[in-house]
């Protein structure tokens, strides 16, 4: 049977992609940020997942505003990164797992999550930066990718509660797949940042730490926030934290924290990293 072996959260901003492309890992601005990923990379090396489900949002590569699915699942054998228009280098393509994806789609739709299925889906920095953060040191991607895109661009967005519930349904979907497949699930984006308007540049360290605490120990406190409340504190782009709730919903009610890292600012962003596994009880 397929099994979730852990959940990871990470920022996915393009500046990180550019820093990796320019090999700035030891640059004083970046070093503490990148060093904080080493324990997660070591853990991945040890557990060797077969599939990474990356929960992310598209920022105008695959989905234009003509069609904005609230939840969209990649159901393809391969995924490609592509030109986003402003110069972030394109990465190698990714192998998918169409059979597993279609099983997930069927299970989720049967659980009343009416998501969009995508047999062609370009994956943008939101998906690619997390993959690169974990595995750019290897000659090829060591596991398959299943992208799960959440609309965090054009309101109305799904609530934190809805994302959490999607995660719970996703767990059922994964655990009902008959193949022995080790799955790691990524919640990406966030934490606090606002790119737009006169209020651009806010970072709220206290709120970010509170979110990380709630996500680990008290997810119901996180789902109690409305999207407006999250945007007031974390900024309009900080709303991406709702995607961390999909990851959290897919884990057990109690979790072990194997790693917790925070750095700010990275470009415009407060950047949080969590590595969580199911607690035994």
């Amino acid at each position, binding site marked *: 049977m397929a099994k979730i072996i852990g959940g990871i959260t990470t920022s996915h901003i393009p500046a990180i992609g550019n820093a990796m492309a320019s090999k700035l890992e030891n640059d004083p601005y970046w070093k503490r940020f990148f060093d904080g990923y080493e324990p997660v990379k070591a853990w991945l090396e040890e557990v060797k997942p077969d599939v990474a489900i990356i929960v992310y949002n598209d920022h105008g590569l695959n989905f234009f505003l003509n069609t904005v699915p609230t939840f969209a699942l990649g159901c393809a054998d391969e995924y490609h990164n592509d*030109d986003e228009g402003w110069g972030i280098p394109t990465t190698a393509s990714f192998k998918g797992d169409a059979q597993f994806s279609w099983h997930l789609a069927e299970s989720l739709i049967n659980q009343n999550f009416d998501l969009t299925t995508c047999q062609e889906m370009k994956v943008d920095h939101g998906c690619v930066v997390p993959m690169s953060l974990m595995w750019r040191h290897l000659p090829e991607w060591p596991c398959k990718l299943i992208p799960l895109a959440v609309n965090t661009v054009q*309101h109305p967005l799904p609530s934190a509660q809805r994302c959490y519930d999607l995660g719970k349904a996703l767990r059922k979907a994964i655990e009902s797949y008959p193949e022995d497949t080790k799955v790691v699930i990524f919640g990406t984006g966030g934490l606090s940042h606002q790119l*737009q308007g*006169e209020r651009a*540049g806010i*970072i709220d360290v206290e709120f970010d730490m509170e979110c990380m605490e709630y996500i680990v120990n008290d997810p119901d406190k996180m789902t109690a926030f409305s999207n407006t409340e999250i945007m007031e504190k974390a900024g309009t782009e900080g709303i991406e934290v709702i995607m961390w709730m999909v990851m959290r919903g897919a884990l057990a009610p109690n979790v072990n924290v194997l790693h917790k890292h925070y750095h700010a600012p990275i470009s415009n962003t407060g950047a949080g990293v969590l590595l969580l596994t199911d607690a035994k009880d």
Partner: protein
Amino acid sequence: MVWQKHDYEDIPGTYVFNGERSHSGYNLNKMAFSFNHEANRKEFAADMDAYCRKYNLSDEQREAVLAGDFLKLLHLGGNVYYLAKIAIFHGLTVQDAGASFQGITTAEFKKKLEDNAEGFQEALKKRGGFWHG
């Protein structure tokens, strides 16, 4: 016919990108989306005015694109991720645009970010459980 009001409209200095904005900025954002293709970037760079007309931007939107007035473009329905695809033609990053929205320099904007995060390592230590290298 009326656009629904939302509680997030009270957040100062903030333009939550919703149906109303997406509707008014559709052509502008569609033009920006076309810049994912290099041939379109070249065509735009060769004659920005003509390219804006091809995508049926309003006069106000077209003038703001040519002037690189990103706050105006936000007011006119531009989405920040799509504006990033336009900013590059003015030699600007998202951080430069962030500065221009509030009429400060990029250096001042970066300082603001540093100030907002000031003391974060102490805060992490107080809360406990965070990696410190």
